[in-house]
């Protein structure tokens, strides 16, 4: 039967594959079941995925990284999966955000006019969840392409869920861009295959060297993924797509989907191309774009007047931080500071995911209560929905990077590694970015201190919706206190590929 | 012998390229569609020749499919072209 070594399983109790199987099964069942059962199925699947993710995290935490071979075929023949600290962090992020968004949506889509949305939401969302989980396990470049398409189509369909012409246009714009990106990625796969004849990331990583083919592949893949992650010059699709979707969908898109492509970018740079010569110029260029993104995105957020657009533009700025990683890794001689930069950016990705999801959910509450997401409607909300206001404030604190939130830990480590690496120009990102972020966060919050004369407010928001948004915001703060665990997961013992290091 | 078939195939490809002129020129959509139809048949012939020249008989299945399926496009074409005819008089003089 299968060739190659038996699968390397360390703890036999946990079954990582279930994280892919459960959401897909849930999606199919949601599709087949009559509408009354969909919500239940969706919630049940979400709970199952969450518990499995938690169990898997524990096992990875204790036993270290893990490698699976699908169908019993070892690489290079078959497709592998790898689960290490990096992937488990993103899995966990997806699980937390996913669970809370699911709970939120169960309530959000319960209004009669939203039933038609719920019908389509659940199968698509569970498909997306399954696709994201498989993306975080991915270890094969072609498999990555297929998974990315799965993510792209389901995300675009979700973005079009609300059915307004603006949301449809935004969804199509997003989708066309992802598709073009996928094509570039596929061509990149071709270039890598042309050079190495391999598809498995780790195998490619061990044999890959420099040369025009690899450089071309790196360029194509990087551009593709940067487009999907909405880095500065390619950011234009994001605000409409995230701003027009229904609240839970925006939370998913902003909190998780762009993290998926960023994760893949990390894998490409630090696993596939770990040994090939990457010019520091490319890394510096990406860092520069990140810096511009931080400033430009935050500036754009400041001048918006609609809450969801502010949050969406803020994503562009916050995502910019992630790209500072590249110059920091490639232009810092000291490995200790490399690890610091690495941890900082992952931390930023995670805390941004939590905070941004919380913000979008809170915006959803606001819209449900007042019927609009114009900032001025905030004025009536503060008294009526103190919990939502509090959510906005907490998540805002995390975005600003004020202590002791997750965002603070991220910015702290980021600034530290920037200063240690001596690349002063990058320090503008956390400093200026923090200022600008504060400006738009307070632009939102200050509205709640304005009392409007006409207290013609407002619809009710269910307790569940308020609570799940608040929980996410709390998580984004509390993660600041659990930095140690994250740092541990990202450090050597459970780390397949350390930037600049070797595979285990 | 195989080279002969390949040459034939090449000749037919050149035919297609020549026919492209009609697609580019138009003037009306029906002309373009007719040209595409010719390409379909020529393509079938080319594929059959190539199957022989390259000695891979399974290519004939591809040819078979082309022969079988091109009519669908035409059906789609006539479903969707009601509006194109007014252009004719105008374009015929170009």
């Amino acid at each position, binding site marked *: 039967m299968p060739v190659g070594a038996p699968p390397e399983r360390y703890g036999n109790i946990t079954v990582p594959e279930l994280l892919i199987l459960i959401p897909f099964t849930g999606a199919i069942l949601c599709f087949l079941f009559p509408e009354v059962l969909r919500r239940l199925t969706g919630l049940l699947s979400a709970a199952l995925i969450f518990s499995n993710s938690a169990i898997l995290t524990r096992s990875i935490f204790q036993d270290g990284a893990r490698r699976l071979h699908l169908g019993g075929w070892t690489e290079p023949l078959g497709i592998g999966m790898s689960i290490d600290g990096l992937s488990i962090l993103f899995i966990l992020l997806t699980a937390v955000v996913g669970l809370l968004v699911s709970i939120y949506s169960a309530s959000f889509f319960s209004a009669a006019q939203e039933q038609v949305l719920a019908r389509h939401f659940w199968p698509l969302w569970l*498909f997306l969840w399954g696709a994201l989980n498989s993306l975080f396990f991915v270890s094969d470049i072609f498999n990555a392409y297929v998974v990315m398409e799965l993510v792209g189509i389901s995300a675009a369909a979700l973005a079009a869920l609300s059915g307004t012409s603006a949301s449809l246009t935004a969804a199509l714009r997003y989708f066309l861009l992802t598709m073009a990106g996928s094509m570039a990625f596929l061509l990149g796969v071709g270039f890598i295959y042309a050079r190495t004849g391999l598809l498995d990331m780790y195998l490619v990583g061990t044999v890959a060297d420099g040369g*025009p*083919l690899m450089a071309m592949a790196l360029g194509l893949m990087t551009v593709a993924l940067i487009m999907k992650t909405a880095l500065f010059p390619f950011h234009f699709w994001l605000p409409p797509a995230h701003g027009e979707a229904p609240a839970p969908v925006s939370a998913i898109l902003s909190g998780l989907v762009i993290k998926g492509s960023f994760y893949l970018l990390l894998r490409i740079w630090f696993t596939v191309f770990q040994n090939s010569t990457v010019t520091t110029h490319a890394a510096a260029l990406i860092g520069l774009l990140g810096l511009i993104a931080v400033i430009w995105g935050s500036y754009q957020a400041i001048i918006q007047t609609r809450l969801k657009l502010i949050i969406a533009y803020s994503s562009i700025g916050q995502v910019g931080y992630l790209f500072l990683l590249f110059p920091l890794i490639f232009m810092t001689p000291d490995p200790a500071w490399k690890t610091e930069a690495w941890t900082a950016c992952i931390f930023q990705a995670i805390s941004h995911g939590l905070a941004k999801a919380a913000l979008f959910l809170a915006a959803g509450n606001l819209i449900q209560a007042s019927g609009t997401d114009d900032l001025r409607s905030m004025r009536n909300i503060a008294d009526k929905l103190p919990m939502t206001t509090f959510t906005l404030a907490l998540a805002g604190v995390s975005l600003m990077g004020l202590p002791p939130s997750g965002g603070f830990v991220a910015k702290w480590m980021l600034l530290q590694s920037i200063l240690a690496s001596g690349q002063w120009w990058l320090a503008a990102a956390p400093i200026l970015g923090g200022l600008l972020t504060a400006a738009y966060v307070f632009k939102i919050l200050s509205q709640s201190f304005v009392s409007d004369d006409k207290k013609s407010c407002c619809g009710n928001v269910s307790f569940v919706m308020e609570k799940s948004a608040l929980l996410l915001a709390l998580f984004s703060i509390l993660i600041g206190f659990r930095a140690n665990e994250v740092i541990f997961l990202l450090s050597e013992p459970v780390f397949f590929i350390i930037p600049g290091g070797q595979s285990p | 012998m195989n080279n002969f078939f390949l040459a034939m*195939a090449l000749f037919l490809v050149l035919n297609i390229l020549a026919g492209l002129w009609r*697609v580019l020129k*138009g003037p009306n959509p029906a002309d373009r569609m007719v040209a595409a139809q010719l390409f379909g048949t020529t*393509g079938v012939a080319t594929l059959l020749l190539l*199957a022989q020249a390259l000695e*891979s008989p399974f290519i004939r299945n591809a040819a078979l499919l*082309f022969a079988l399926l091109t009519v669908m496009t035409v059906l789609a074409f006539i479903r969707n072209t009601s509006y194109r005819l007014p252009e004719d008089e105008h374009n015929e003089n170009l």
Partner: protein
Amino acid sequence: MDLVFDLIIGLSLAGVSWRIVRAREHFQAIVLFITFGLLLSLAWTRLKSPDIAIAEAAVGAGLAGVLLMDTLGALSSPRERAKVVISLKLLIPCLFLAGLMAYSILYIPEDFQGLGIVVREALPQTHLEYPITAVLLDFRGYDTWLELGVLLVAVLGVLCIRRTDNIKGTMLPAPAEPVGSWIVKLLLPLMVLIGGYLLWLGAFAPGGAFQGGVVLASAGVMLWQSGHPSLGLMPRLWWKILLCSGFLSFLILAFSSLFYTDQLLTHPATKTWILGVEYAATLSIALCLISLVLGSPARNHENKGV
């Protein structure tokens, strides 16, 4: 001779693609695109990839054309012509990219070895004779599974965009044509036959689930084009189950393999499984493609679901 052929094909592909981009009339671009597909399948043939040639023929000759034409019919206004000017601002970067890629292509190693040898060595361990089918269904079955997922999600997405839960709600039969229905009566059995033949062929020769599925899908689409309800005849639940069948069979395989062998997607030792999966995949590919094509062209009913 070979080289001349290669050169001609290569140049004409490039030229046709350029004309597609430059075409002023949308319809012209679409006809050129169909021609482009034809030329591509010649290239596949030349590169000894009959599987791809068959797939390209099946998709390019039928479905892609129908999709594009139907959409064009709905999108364009009567005399719409695109303004196509050459934009240097965009052309120069594209040329630069092309140049870079062309330069790097020269570095493709002479002694390139892909994974072909590995596949052929492992082939006897599978129950399949044809390497491509083995790669698709066994070695890289995960990809195929996810690919079926992509198809399914695309259908879900189309349903979501059309705000309906059933493809029936989006369809309208085409007007009946006497010759059309005669043709369809003649061709339809043949298409089903050929679809089945291609599926059967896949076990040992070029062909397989996808090619077979596309031909079956074309049969369904053609049935609809000639004024028959096609999918509309199918009960909704059956339509749904069959739509999922390919993905679902992989899912069942995944669960059972996980249960029995502790590994994902290990094939059990019987050929029945593989065939079962392949048949289910064919059916669901066919149904998904029909749904994708028919899901879009809603004309009269479309606003009811909103």
